[in-house]
Every structure is written in C-alpha cells, then in structure tokens.
C-alpha cells in the first residue's frame, strides 16, 4: 500500500465552530476505461468509498466512481461540538481499507 493519507485540519476549534478538512490519498484510481500496450483493457481499481466519523458519529461520506481523479482529494466541513477524534477511511475495490485518525481539542 502507498503513502499515508494526508489530512489537514485545525488542532483546536471553538465549540460550535465549523472547520474545513482537506484529505488526499495516493491511489491510481484506474478507471477501467484504459487499455494497455497490447490493447487489453486495464481492469478497474478505484477507491469506491470515503467516510469520516467524529467520536463514532458520521460526519461526511462520499461514494466515488471511476470519474474521480487519481490521488483523490476530498474537502468538506465539520461542526465541532466537543473535543474528540476524527476517523477517516478509504475503501478500495479489492476490499482494502486505508484508515487514518486525527484529534481535535476545544479552544479554552
């Protein structure tokens, strides 16, 4: 498996603040439309699902199709009501799941 996903979000937020989260994961996102040098179709292999949870509750999810660019970049928002942990997951066609976690604190 490739490099660790890159995730950008603030370290802390005020209660009720809406923060922006940027994620990027390395993946070829082979669309299934391309042919190799011999003219054979290259089989599809993509990340087909992304999900983000905060303290076990769903925040945002995205079903991805082959029309998503290689190294999928996904940016979305989250409202912070409490300190806690974000869990991110990217599910590959072959069943592999890439996961990552990020913590956020409440501003004093």
């Amino acid at each position, binding site marked *: 498996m490739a490099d660790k996903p890159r995730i950008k979000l603030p370290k802390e937020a005020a209660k009720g603040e809406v923060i922006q989260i940027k994620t990027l994961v390395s993946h070829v996102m082979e669309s299934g439309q391309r042919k190799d040098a011999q003219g054979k179709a290259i089989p599809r292999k993509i990340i087909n699902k992304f999900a983000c949870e905060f303290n076990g509750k769903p925040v945002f*999810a995205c079903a991805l199709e082959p029309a998503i*660019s290689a190294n999928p970049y996904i*940016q979305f928002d989250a409202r912070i009501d409490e300190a806690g942990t974000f869990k991110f997951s990217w599910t590959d066609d072959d069943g592999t799941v890439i996961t990552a976690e990020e913590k956020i604190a409440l501003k004093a």
Partner: protein
Amino acid sequence: LTLMPMAADAEVSNDAAKWIEKFTGGRQPAKGKISLDLPEIAENGNTVPLSINIESPMTADSHVKDVLIVADGNPNAGVATLSFTPLSGKAEASIRIRLASTQNVVAIAKMSDGSLFTEQKTVKVTIGGCGG
C-alpha cells in the same frame, strides 16, 4: 499516455438519465439552493476541480442528506454521491473529477424533508480525461 480520439462536442448519451432516475425516484428537482463551481474551460480533463455549496441550516430538522453528481458525456455518468449530516456543519465539498470531453456536469441535492434541487454547469474540455 496516448489519448483516445473523442468527439470535441460530444453529446454522448450515457447512463446519466438512469443515475438521476434512481436518485430522484422520478421526481422533478427544483432549480436553486446549489452553487456548483467548475471551470468553464478545463485544459486537462484528467483533473477538473469541482466545488459545491448548498444553502441549508444543516440542523437535525433541516439539512442536506445526499448529493448526486453525474457527468453526461463520460463513458459512465456517475461521478460521486456525497452524504452530509448535521455534523457536517455546512453542505460544502470539493473534489477533483475526470471529464472525457466537453459536457454537462449535473448536481442533484436531496434534503432531509425529501425535497430535491438541481444545478448544472457546462465544461469545455481541451484534453479529455478518459485516456487510454
């Protein structure tokens, strides 16, 4: 990479209508609430930035649930389905997409009360991202 020859002004009929039918259950979405941001001209169809923002208070009672994005000129129309929750805070997201040729990108939002809204943008593509 060599590029597959593709029509410049493709009005390719793909399965876009089927995706939309499945998502809306055949109901007609209204115009409005969605701001869909895509470049008018994309030089490289392999990575076209798409941003979407939907007007909504994003409370437990009133929020955006799912947003379908389809492209009517790609080999397969489906692009992504975004799922928001009140914890999203805002119904806003950015992704990067592939466009095989000049075509329309359509977004349809389903709200928590079941209402549907739609918006679409035409993107002129110089180099297709369908690449073989």
